[in-house]
């Protein structure tokens, strides 16, 4: 069994066990991209043995006993200092497999609220938030860009309940948070430029599908209601930093 298959199996095992323990564990990151792109995995690339989860704030105190029971050891020092926002567990002493858990909302360059949203998908965070979790990265790298392309290629715009990317949710979040809107807009432009690269191995039809979905999001941005505070922040623009700084977890 290769590492990736092992990761998938382990993720399923943990989610099932969490459900039995009344813990809402939902995947984000690479494995979630895989889950929502499994009909066409051309753009899915992963090399690190990490599983990323989000858990509701109220479940955080259940995590350590749950993961110990599941055969994991906590990163005690990290969890002690950061445990209210983030926790890390390792499957064995050699730290071969790492489980990285965000507690409560998704918070990196921008905050994406997940309160009351973790029941929408039984495995991952909602597809819309998953897309935004990639689109909110200020220093978008090639792998992140491919993840966005993969999600947009394999998932239509539509309704949350139908397992699609919800424009309504994107509008609701970006109308409240100018910073999230700005970074998402910048990254969608980057993706549009990237689509011109012939090395991506996309057919003309696939490019059109992705471009149409990007334009659908951009149209939503154009017509969404904008508060006075949002408009004032827009006037200031990127002269003032509009995102949180994200750092490495050095082990």
């Amino acid at each position, binding site marked *: 069994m290769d590492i990736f298959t092992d990761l998938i199996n382990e993720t399923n095992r943990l989610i099932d066990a969490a459900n039995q323990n009344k813990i809402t564990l939902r995947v984000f990151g690479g494995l979630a991209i895989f889950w929502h792109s499994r009909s066409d995995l051309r753009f899915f690339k992963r090399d690190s043995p990490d599983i990323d989860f989000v858990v509701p704030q109220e479940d955080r105190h259940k995590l350590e006993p749950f993961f110990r029971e599941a055969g994991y050891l906590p990163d005690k020092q990290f969890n002690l200092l950061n445990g209210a926002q*983030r926790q890390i567990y390792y499957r064995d002493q050699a730290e071969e497999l790492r489980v990285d858990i965000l507690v409560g909302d998704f918070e990196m360059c921008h905050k994406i609220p997940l309160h009351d949203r973790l029941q929408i998908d039984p495995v991952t965070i909602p597809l819309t938030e998953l897309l935004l979790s990639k689109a909110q990265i200020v220093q978008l790298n090639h792998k992140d860009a491919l993840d966005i392309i993969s999600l947009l290629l394999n998932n239509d715009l539509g309704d949350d309940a139908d397992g699609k990317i919800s424009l309504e949710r994107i509008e609701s979040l970006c109308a409240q948070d100018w910073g999230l809107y700005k970074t998402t807009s910048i990254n969608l432009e980057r993706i549009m430029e990237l689509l011109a690269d012939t090395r991506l191995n996309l057919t003309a039809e696939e490019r059109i599908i992705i471009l149409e979905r990007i334009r659908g999001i951009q149209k939503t941005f154009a017509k969404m209601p904008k508060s006075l505070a949002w408009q004032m922040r827009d006037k200031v623009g990127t002269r003032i930093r509009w995102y949180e700084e*994200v750092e490495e977890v050095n082990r």
Partner: protein
Amino acid sequence: MTNLFVRKATGLVRSWSVFDAFVYAFFSINLITLGLYSFSQMYYFEGGMINALVISAIFIFFEVVVYAGLIAVMPRSGGDYVWQSRILGGAVGFILAVTGWWFILWLWVPLYGDMFRHIVLVPLLGILGAKDVALWFAGTENGSFVASLITLAIVSVFIALGMKTYARIQKFSFYGGMLGLLIVIVLFLTGSNAAFKSGLDANATALFGAQPGVYDATVQLGTDAGAITPFSGGALLAIFLVMPYMVFFNLWPNWGATLYGEVRGATDFKRNVTGMGWALGATTLLGILLLYSIGRTIGWDFYVQAGAAWWNYVWGYTDVAPALPVWPYPALFAAFLTSNKLIQFVVVALMSLWWFGWCGTVFLSSTRVIFAAAFDRLLPEKVAEVDGRTGTPINALLLMVVPSIIVAFMFSYNIASFQSLTLCSTLVIAVTYLGTTISAIILPYVKPDLYKASPIAKYNILGIPLITVAGVIFGGFLVFLLYQWILDPNALYGIGIKNTSSVIYMLSMYVLAAIIYFGFKSYRKRSGIDMDKVQAEIPAE
């Protein structure tokens, strides 16, 4: 694909922003709690208050440079403990860090409690008409002890809420407290001395049952107590002799040093200097403005005399009780410039946020030193565990809270002259800072690889590393302070070798730290763990 990044970051957003760290530093050198409390005690100096405030701030700026540099090199939770143990060695690092960041904080609890009753409880209760309760808190040993217990309860709750929530409390307190201070300064600058005199006499009688003629009686009592400290001026030596008292208030812009493992962008030296430096600069400027405005309306001489009248009685130098039966709190004096009870309440309530925003500092920094020592296995691992239900580091808190109750009891009831130990709270931490400063001075020479790879390696003065230069200047300042405190040649500070309680108290802390260190080292050795090797490694973030 030129517009994409080569990004390494795995996406950790640390709990505190640089602004949060600034607010923590700003509150750590708290003008209203520490500042006004110590200014009121400094009534018998010949050097000018403003001069001492400014000159001490200049020296303390070099402390900021030293700590900002060390944070940039090793941004680790535990701060001084990590730096000293990795540069000076395990024994020195542990003993100096736990005495300065843990044990001596037990003594700070009754001091925080004392400020709680004088700045929050007594004035608010008085304005609300609860005269007897206010006077019970203001003037009784039981009131003092209960204020310390309430302080401990509030601080424990704040610690349990975690860094992120505490930062929110601090920010709210910062904005509210600044609004309160603005109102106080405006009231002083627009009021007159005559209005203050009549306001004081009327309100002191109405709210606290003082005898009529409070103002004149206070002037007399203060003069008899030897109140002489000038607003400014004085010979250079006289000004320098004010500073060992002044630093009780402003030596702490680096108080967040142990928390910088949880601050975003802590490897940025300039940003660290900016955060702590602005806190120091803003506090110094606000201090000058507030003291000036106090002098303008209350009258500088009266302000010093009121402090003298209060402390001369509290310290037992006279049996004559102060005419004003509560601590002379300038914000309360400002409130007396209006007869509107609602405005009085709002002013004092907003000013009380200076205490609420600050009180968590008594334990928050300390918990990180305890954690760091526990992760090095110099304390039981249980100490660094959080309670599964509440998420509170309950054992670390107990190590702070339980001894604090005993020390607060001794302080409140003045057992073994504990109330004379106020400045010990500063002395012991200054010794710890000296250890850290020496670490900073020698860092480029004893850990050249670490230093050269750090962001501060590019900062030099005449070819000498900036951190070394800043360390020598600040270290010299600390040596001066320690000389004055310990030998006390002018009998000004009361905590040195002439005070038996002080010597016993401080030495017992160092002995306790040494016993823990060597005891655990020996215990770990028997378990096959070499503590020297553990403490030779830089801990993980």
